[in-house]
């Protein structure tokens, strides 16, 4: 394992990488340029995940070629010197004389099932997935193309999924403005103030020890003592479980039996038609109770 993770090293960052320019924090992007040597490397688990991703990526290319798809310009580098943007694209596919840039991403089963269109990438709750459209947009702009394709691989099942994405001019404009801003700070050797605080983003940020963001949270609420109610809830909980199990068994025993006399009980049954309806989208409050004493 040590051998696998040893190859991760810090390299000087002299440009805005297309793969990270979609990061929501300007301070992070400037630190990436000015304090690259102080960024923490990914932990051992993350290093292994990245290694696995690389292996899968190579396999996807191999599979595509074996399937007869024409894959060209593998790992071609790009540079847009005016904005100090660089990147390298996984490859391009040629379909009916048209060429499309491709970007291969590997993901978990959970993420794979959630991503079915470019819109899902923009709206993902994971910031690193929201960065994918920015990466593709920059490749399309630098390669003067209108459309590109993401190929997602489910690491658990090996399934592949294509997500086409058209050039988003608004996003492109925002990214170029962002790159200009970063370059100005780099030129002045200045680090901007922290503009955003995102609990998930900041707590795992590789520059947290440099940025030192103020972690501001609302304190836990101390509620008046309702122990009696909660104690009773935990007393009844196993009984409720047992009740449900027995009910299920009884219903299964007497299924499709219209009238049965059983000891002290008369059991009747009939078919009930279910009406179809759609559950409207919404939200609900999930309460979790942990017994501490």
């Amino acid at each position, binding site marked *: 394992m040590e051998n696998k993770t040893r190859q991760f090293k810090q390299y000087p960052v002299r440009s805005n990488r297309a793969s990270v320019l979609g990061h929501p924090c300007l301070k992070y992007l400037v630190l990436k340029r000015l304090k690259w*040597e102080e960024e923490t490397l990914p932990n051992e688990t993350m290093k292994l995940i990245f290694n696995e991703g690389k292996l899968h990526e190579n396999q996807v290319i191999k599979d595509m070629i074996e399937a007869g798809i024409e894959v060209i310009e593998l790992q071609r580098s790009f540079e847009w010197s005016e904005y100090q943007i660089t990147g390298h694209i996984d490859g391009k596919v040629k379909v009916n004389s048209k060429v499309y840039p491709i970007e291969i991403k590997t993901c978990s089963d959970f993420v794979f099932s959630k991503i079915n269109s470019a819109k899902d990438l923009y709206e993902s709750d994971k910031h690193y997935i929201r960065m994918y459209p920015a990466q593709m947009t920059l490749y399309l702009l630098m390669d003067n193309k209108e459309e590109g394709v993401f190929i997602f691989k489910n690491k658990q099942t090996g399934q592949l999924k294509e997500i086409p994405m058209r050039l988003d001019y608004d996003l492109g404009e925002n990214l170029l403005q962002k790159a200009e801003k970063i370059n100005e700070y780099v030129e002045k050797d200045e680090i901007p103030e922290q503009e955003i605080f995102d609990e998930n983003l900041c707590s795992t940020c590789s520059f947290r*020890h440099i940025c*030192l963001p*103020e*972690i501001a949270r609302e304190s836990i609420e101390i509620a008046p003592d309702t122990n009696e109610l909660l104690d009773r809830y935990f007393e009844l909980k196993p009984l409720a479980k047992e009740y449900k199990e027995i009910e299920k068994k009884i219903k299964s025993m007497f299924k499709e039996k219209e009238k049965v006399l059983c000891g002290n009980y008369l059991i009747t049954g009939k078919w009930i038609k279910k009406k179809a309806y759609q559950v409207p989208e919404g939200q609900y409050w999930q309460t979790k109770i942990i017994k501490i004493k």
Partner: protein
Amino acid sequence: MEEKTLKEKDIVVTPIEEKVKPYSYDIEKIVKKAREHAELAKQIKLAVFAITNQEDWVDMGGKPYLQASGCEKIARIFGISWKLEQPELVTYPDGHFEFVFTGKFAFGPITENNPTVITATGSRCSRDGFFKTRYKKAKNGKYEQYELPPEEIDPGDVRKSAESNCIGRGIKKLLGLENLDWTELEQHGIKKGSKKVEYKANSPKENSDKSDAIKEKIIQKCKEKGLNDNEIKDFLSYTTSGQENVKIYSTIWNNLDKYIEKWKNQQNQQEQSLFNQ
């Protein structure tokens, strides 16, 4: 001796409202609050035991130590906020260096009116085995341990660890999770796991002698600066958070003036918040 009989008219009854209180603050209220705090502290501890598991705890020199990941997990649930200052970089004559972080921690936002605000420090030194120890393959095929010189140790790693150390200590101080023992944890279903950290640099006896010597120097210097015995005791408890070792005492000794100033500020803040309650 002249005997005097008091008549009813001689007795002046002062209405309760006009009675002069012996102190400007209400003792009963403070005692009640202290009891409530103690009960709350007990509840917090129980909650921490309920939401952490064996993986979150590590055995450090025979004592349970809640790891940084576990600390941050519980900090989210309890709504603990913090703000760290830029760290101090202490350099030693042998080239080794140490990052010392100081931060404010509280339940809820860090404001002047929040009575739960506390200060904690945390540090890591490049001399720690974790940073300087490496392994290389020897001719016989076995791996040999060697030490990196200070200039080859990544300051970013040391800084990051010092930051985590400060956050962990702050959270634990706030939640009253210092000085726990395995018996207490085992009573709540958390057993001592296989994760273990041992200090091998010096024997416990050597370490204890060294830390005692530095501690004595600190006490002497504090006395010279006019602190009385109780104040010195409080200052040491504030700066060490109950952890006594050579590293902590060396850091305090190297930054004594600054730490005394911080401790005094903290004292003033605490007094202020007590009166504000």
